[in-house]
């Protein structure tokens, strides 16, 4: 058994109750929690074709350290972790993201009726509906991929041969609601080609 197999098995254990392989031709993994928000988000994302180099976590609120460490290992080896946080993100999850990925979250901010949309600048410019509350994230301007009220709420960061995309505003429910802009945006995120320079490396390591 190779080191890679050991890691893959280890990763499977904490998520055994909620991980599923994609039915799409290029198998990526969806990880969700057993609550209605996370499940709704997963249902939205499930309809998308997702590149094999991605691992998607939907509406997460309680990610623990061991799971996060395993995800980090996957990222180091070439996977892109798309981490969608629930607006009900626990302090434990926030600490985990800080400790394992160096991602510092601020307290969730309730979305205002004066500003209904998250503004993405990557992979392309788009406005999508924000979801009740958004989670501001401290990151460099080059890492920020979306803003709400001028504050970064989503970011991407390279980790080893892969990386992590953190979404502080839920996108899955928008997909479930057939929001065209969200669908286009998510499709672009998961196309695989958006993670420039990572596809080839990933395909030889997973």
């Amino acid at each position, binding site marked *: 058994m190779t080191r890679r197999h050991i890691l893959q098995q280890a990763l499977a254990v904490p998520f055994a109750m909620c991980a599923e392989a994609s039915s799409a031709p290029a198998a990526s993994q969806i990880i969700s929690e057993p609550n209605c928000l996370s499940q709704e988000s997963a249902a939205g994302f499930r309809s998308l074709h997702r590149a094999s180099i991605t691992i998607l976590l939907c509406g997460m609120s309680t990610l623990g350290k061991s799971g996060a460490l395993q995800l980090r290992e996957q990222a180091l080896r070439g996977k892109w972790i798309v981490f969608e946080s629930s607006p009900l993100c626990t302090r434990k999850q926030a600490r985990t993201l800080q400790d394992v990925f160096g991602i510092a979250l601020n307290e969730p901010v309730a979305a205002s*009726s*004066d*500003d*209904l*949309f998250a503004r993405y600048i990557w992979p392309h410019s*788009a*406005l*999508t*509906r924000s979801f009740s509350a958004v989670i501001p994230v401290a990151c460099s301007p080059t890492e920020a991929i979306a803003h709400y009220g001028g504050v970064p709420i989503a970011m991407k960061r390279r980790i080893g041969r892969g990386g992590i995309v953190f979404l502080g505003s839920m996108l899955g429910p928008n997909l479930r609601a057939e*929001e*065209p*802009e969200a669908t286009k945006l998510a499709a672009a995120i998961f196309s695989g080609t958006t993670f420039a320079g990572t596809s080839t490396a990933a395909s030889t390591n997973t």
Partner: protein
Amino acid sequence: MKKSIGDNIFPERMSFENGLKLLKRSGYQGIELWLGDRPWFQMATTDAQLREMRQQIEDAGLEISNVSTALDWDENVSSRDPAKREAAFRHIRRQIEAAQIFNCDAILIVAGIVTADTPYNEVYNRCVDSLQKLAPDAASAKVKIGVENCCSEQRFLLSPREFNTFLNDVDSRWVGIHLDVGNIHDTGFAEQWIEMLGPRITRVHLKDVLKHRGRCGDQSVYTNIFLGDNNWRAIRDAFTKVGYDGWVVAEMEAKYRYAPDQQIYDTSAAMDRVISGNL
């Protein structure tokens, strides 16, 4: 985005020519022409007279944003009376012809009026059938039919999802929605209509709405931009979201009692703020 306003806003007794000058001075780029409202544009107006109007408008430095009508309230494609239905077809086809002469690519109609004795399903099917018959005329003229959402007045197509289904049933890219952001009253939110119907919007009417008044009272439910309950920031963002960059046309029901020309200036300034997003 480009700014327009209807010729029915011209102060009483103002000539067409002076009205055009007023619009230009107020900063509009276009004019919406209402078939049947003012003496200069009636069913009896000839093609030659329409060409003359177009020349006057161009000479004034304006374009024609769209051709609208209020005739549908009396002569509707959903009427049980065949004569009225025929009349509706006649004036809609005349709008299409006029739009061609005016070199503009959109008309506004009101399709469907539900009443106590003309029930909803009957109106729905008749409207779909009628628009399917009119769509080839629109296609050959390359003029889009914008079906306005006069939701409360029509008691018809009261949600964006239903409007979308209606357009799916008509199934022509030459038939879309002329979206009035003031007409949604308390049954929904204009920005959600924009988000759901974005690519199908032919033109936009701008006005504000006082949601608490409803349509049955003795005071108008409509008011000037920024005086009502519309969420203008959300509306502007929604236009950006769906990529709508076409004509926005002011439609003011409540008129100034004094200095009526001032309303045209004020509306123009308010529209500038909406367009720029400086809200």
